[in-house]
């Protein structure tokens, strides 16, 4: 599908940008609510700290009803897309090549298909355009243009994510940066954004939601046919990932019941294991 700037369904925020593309190639679809979008971007060679942050941020944003936008690159980008989808949320990927010419890893090509069904994949280039070194930085303006705020999770000294942040500032959108280790090379760019006053500090999704959250409709927790124990366990992991032991202690229930209940919820796609005994809710 091709959307021109004249098209009423052309993303409104992007349309305000002077250098917005004349036409957008789209797989999947934009839906109402996609205008409340936040970009989560960062380095390709992330640390596991970065992965955790990207995952938590994208998930919590998605859980709050925000559409997560990124560039489907290795590292932070793909993590953010995946976390948003896993949480049952919306996500949009902006490519630097044609929609039919994406040649990433198998895992990312699979992810692309998931995004195309559960969100949208867009590009300003013709479907079989292979992309070039300069097209990837250029598409970053679309990521910035589609969103109300851009969060840079990890960025080295020169980084594509910093370009996205610069475009966002050009368009008068909010920019956030996540702090990291002062000794590591992967957070130098983020720290510079913060010290130069161009980005605000982001510690969790709530920091971003304070900026864009007012625009969100109040969201209701899903009314599901759950037993009291299932309800209690689901509520316990609704906002953040928690370990079985913690849930059991807080609910004062035997760990075996909680463990079994989590699996029942998981098989009904209501919660998801995030590793080593920790779980978080999915929303649909």
């Amino acid at each position, binding site marked *: 599908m091709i959307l021109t700037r004249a098209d009423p369904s052309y993303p409104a925020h992007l349309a305000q940008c002077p250098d917005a593309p004349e036409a957008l190639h789209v797989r999947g679809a934009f839906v109402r609510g996609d205008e409340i979008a936040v970009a989560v971007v960062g380095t390709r060679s992330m640390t*596991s700290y970065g992965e955790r942050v990207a995952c938590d941020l994208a998930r919590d944003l998605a859980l709050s009803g925000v559409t997560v936008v990124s560039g489907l690159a290795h590292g932070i980008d793909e993590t953010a897309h995946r976390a948003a989808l896993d949480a049952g949320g919306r996500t949009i990927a902006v490519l630097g090549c044609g929609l039919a010419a994406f040649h990433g890893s198998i895992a990312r090509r699979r992810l692309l298909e998931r995004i195309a069904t559960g969100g949208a994949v867009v590009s300003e280039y013709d479907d079989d355009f292979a992309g070039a070194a300069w097209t990837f930085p250029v598409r970053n303006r679309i990521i910035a243009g589609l969103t109300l705020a851009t969060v840079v999770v990890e960025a080295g000294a020169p980084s594509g994510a910093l370009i996205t942040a610069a475009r966002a500032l050009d368009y008068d959108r909010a920019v956030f940066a996540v702090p990291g280790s002062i000794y590591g090379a992967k957070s130098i760019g983020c720290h510079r954004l913060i010290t130069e006053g161009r980005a605000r500090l982001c510690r969790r999704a709530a920091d971003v939601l304070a900026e864009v959250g007012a625009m969100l409709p109040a969201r209701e927790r899903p009314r599901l046919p759950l037993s009291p124990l299932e309800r209690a366990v689901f509520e316990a992991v609704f906002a953040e990932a928690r370990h079985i*032991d913690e849930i059991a202690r807080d609910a004062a229930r035997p*760990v075996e019941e909680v463990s079994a209940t989590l699996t029942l919820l998981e098989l009904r796609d209501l919660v998801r294991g995030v590793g080593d005994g920790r779980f978080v809710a999915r929303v649909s």
Partner: protein
Amino acid sequence: MAALAAEGTARGLATTRACALWGLDAQLVRVEVDVAPGLPSMHVVGLADAAIREARERVRSAVRNSGFEFPLRRITVNLAPADRRKEGTGFDLAIAVGVLRASGQLQSTADPLLVAELALDGSLRPVRGCLPRVAAAAARGVDEVVVSRENASEAAAVDTLAVRAARTLREVVAHLDSTAPIVGEPAAPLGEDTSGGEVDFADIAGQASARRALEIAAAGGHNVLLVGPPGTGKTLLARAFPGILPAFTPRERFEASVVHSVAGLLGPDRPLLAARPYRAPHHTLSAYALVGGASPPRPGEVSLAHRGALFLDELPEYPAAALEALREPLEDGRITISRAGAAATYPARTILVAAMNPCACGFFGDAERECRCLPEQVARYRARISGPLLDRIDLRVGVPRVQAAALRSVSAEPSHAIRERVEGARRAARARGVLANAELPLSALRRWSRLSDQTHALLELAVAKDRLSSRGYHRVIRVARTIADLESSAEIAELHLAEALSLRREL
């Protein structure tokens, strides 16, 4: 049977009894000794290995140094059955007594089993694998065995035959011709079952899901993997594990002791294992040391842990070859080692308790410390545990850092209370003809694992959602059976299966 050896030219023929060992499989061996005219020489035939052929020299010196005469004739020793390869030094005494008989220096028809190595001065030395040899002989109706003093208490664990412990070849001869009979060794008392962890579960705060997983592991004989950052108590939990294993039954104790006997790990001070074995080999060991091997084959750690527990700390640090070699024993409860001309099967019915960090630096997912690994490094680290190996580990739990608040809170349940529930589950398993549910064969599993419609639907759902491999399908039902047994429930309820599925989660 007694030999007659007229001066000069007469032939002498005599037989004695020894016992050969292949793995744990012991078979009585007829030692035939022929002393015939000819150039002085001694030949051992009957597929004897180097150690047995060397017996010639030991026997010659031992006979002479015991004050007997070594016949200067042509001596042929045959070990029957002659078509199976035999190894070890356990035939020395039988050959020496045969030579004395065939040369007319011992006139007695007594025909006990003779199991000892000879020193050059004629004294008796212990042999590896005394226990299975004596047990096999007893099972075939042998009523008397002569062993070295060091092997005496081990042999005396078999109480259906008379055990004579001798120090020297002279004493053996004096016993056989009744000039100085040796008093039978008193049956070795079983002694206290000293099983028990060095750590009590009462001293471990928090870790509810790890405690639960270890309880299920002990109750059903299932394998368990603890994943968590360093310093969260994985090793402590593993060390407490023996304390909740059920009482060591005499049958299990015998089985485990036999393996230790073959490995040469029993002695006068420890004739039988006093407690369930708990083996914790370091991760620098080789595949042979872990599952057994070498030539001639020896039992490895996984067999030494038979009827007990095998603790592998830092699981991904073990050599890949060693970990892959674990698959067969974990699946079948035994391991067959084949070497040129010799195959040995050792039992390996053990509970694997493995521990690992979540990543190479150890802090992935830790709330307090920062992980320095790249995500691919984390994935690579975990991939060191191959899918087929992980498939055989039914219980996988995350061991989180315990918050200080939880450390101070409620006092934890002591080991003996957990052990009581474990015993209950084991009783249920014994009623099905096995010692633990992990050993239930498929036919028995079907018979004893009635699933309610609801439970069955859940199982189908798990399969549809790709949560179970075909091996995992039956393994998860075994675990669910154990969980139901811990609640004395005849039927496997939905929650039982759900918990079993929960514990089988991917890393």
